[in-house]
């Protein structure tokens, strides 16, 4: 469904991604583990068209994405819930969600059930729908960000560290939501440092270090790997 081959990305003279090749099959939930600065966000931003690759290709189904505009990529069905949420802080929660459906603006009827679905998944958002997004707590803002991405009706959903900075209980809730989204049929690529929790819901995982993919495998294999346990699980 989503396939990167030899993705290479430079920031000036600094190489953030060196020949990254990954694939996410239809219906899969794949986790990308990596420490701070490993290159997870760089890869995600490149996939969404916000960073230009130096070399390599990114394909969504049969489409080549490299070179397409971010707005076209969203319309193609690849939607990202970015690190740091990137909400519209001065707008209401509802408006943030509705703008998530921007590429489907000619089909407002089709967005209604998705909005209902988002409210059912995160009931607090229904309560706070008229508050400005900037006034919400970090966890609630993360829910808005996930909801906003869902409103784009993704075929492939990228989630960049959705659990960052959240209390353990909220992390659990957010990851449970991610699992449910995947089970409802959306293909998911999830970047996480919270390896233990993420591996529990994943079908497959990659480990990225210094812009290189250093490991790929089944969550159980990674969970059993000594190095992974040391680096990402701390046990």
């Amino acid at each position, binding site marked *: 469904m989503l396939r990167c081959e030899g993705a290479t990305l430079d920031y000036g003279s600094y190489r953030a991604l060196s020949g990254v090749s990954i694939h996410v099959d239809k219906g899969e939930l794949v986790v990308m583990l990596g420490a701070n600065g490993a290159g997870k966000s760089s890869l995600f931003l490149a996939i*969404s*068209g*916000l960073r230009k690759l130096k070399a390599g290709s990114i394909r969504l189904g049969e489409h080549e994405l490299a070179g397409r*505009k*971010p*707005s076209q990529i*969203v*319309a193609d069905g690849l*939607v*990202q819930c*970015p690190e740091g*949420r*990137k*909400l*519209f*802080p*001065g*707008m209401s929660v509802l*408006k943030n969600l509705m*703008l*998530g459906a*921007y*590429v489907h*603006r000619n089909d407002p009827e089709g967005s209604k059930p998705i909005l209902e679905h988002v409210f059912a998944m995160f009931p607090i958002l229904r309560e706070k729908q008229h508050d400005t997004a*900037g006034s919400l707590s970090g966890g609630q803002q993360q829910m808005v960000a996930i909801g*906003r*991405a869902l409103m*784009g009706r993704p075929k492939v959903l990228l989630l960049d560290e959705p659990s960052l900075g959240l209390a353990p209980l909220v992390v659990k809730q957010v990851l449970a939501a991610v699992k449910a989204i995947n089970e409802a049929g959306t293909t998911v690529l999830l970047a996480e440092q919270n390896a233990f929790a993420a591996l529990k819901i994943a079908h497959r995982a990659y480990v990225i270090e210094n812009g290189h993919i250093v490991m790929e495998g089944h969550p159980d294999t990674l969970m059993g790997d000594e190095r992974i346990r040391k680096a990402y699980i701390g046990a």
Partner: protein
Amino acid sequence: MNLSLFVQQILNGLTLGSVYALVALGLTLVYGILHIPNFSHGALFTAGAYVAFFIVGSLGANYWVGLIGAALATAAIAMLSERLVFSRLRDSPPLHDMIAAIGLLLFIEAVAHAIWGADFRRLAPPYPGIMRVAGTVLPIQRALIIAGAIGLMVALHLFLRRTVTGSTIVAMAQNREGASLVGIDLTRVSLITFAISGALAAIAAVLFAPINLISPGMGNLVILKAFVIIILGGMGSVPGAILGGMIIGFAESFGAFYISTDLKDIIAFALLVAILSLRPQGLFPAPAR
């Protein structure tokens, strides 16, 4: 104090404030896209006045045709400047945009100078009469300025709040990457924003021209004041631009009357220094971006 003179100053302040607010609104909207103050915005004000002068004075058309023609032509010039200059500088340091904007300002001014010369030009008011308001006289042109500005502000407000396209402009200003990630096209939003800012500047200029002559440098003082206004009002804030415009308009009108006409143009800048030393973040810090 003489009441009718006082009312007169209020009306003058409203007139000036309306013109300044319209110019500052465009400037503040474009700030949300470029993240720099667009120095060439003053040239759009000048361009609008000359286009109307050409349509009305040389082609002999009606004032309102001139107004609409000026708004459309200036919107086109603004869009062209976005395409040819600013969009190409999107990934370069902000200083480059600023230098380009100043270059553009000088260029448009020079074009006006080359075509129409340095002489002052006049645009006749469409309704030369006066009306009486609360015991004082109000030239109809001033009433038109005030009513036009209020109408445009309401329309702009509704556009930004109630329409999807308007929301994309606000979204882009509040979080550019967030906007791209929901599929909003930066190019489209930039073009629309520049077009609106150009049209507002042109309409302000054409409304103002009958009570204030047209010349190649007419935009300079206005744009400087518009900067003062958006700094006062908070960069990027729409209500701030309106209120800031009114504050400067009133300060000038009352300052000219009660202090000295010669000091009128200094008042805006004195006010800027005074307010910023008390509130460095401006009167309305811009909504978090």
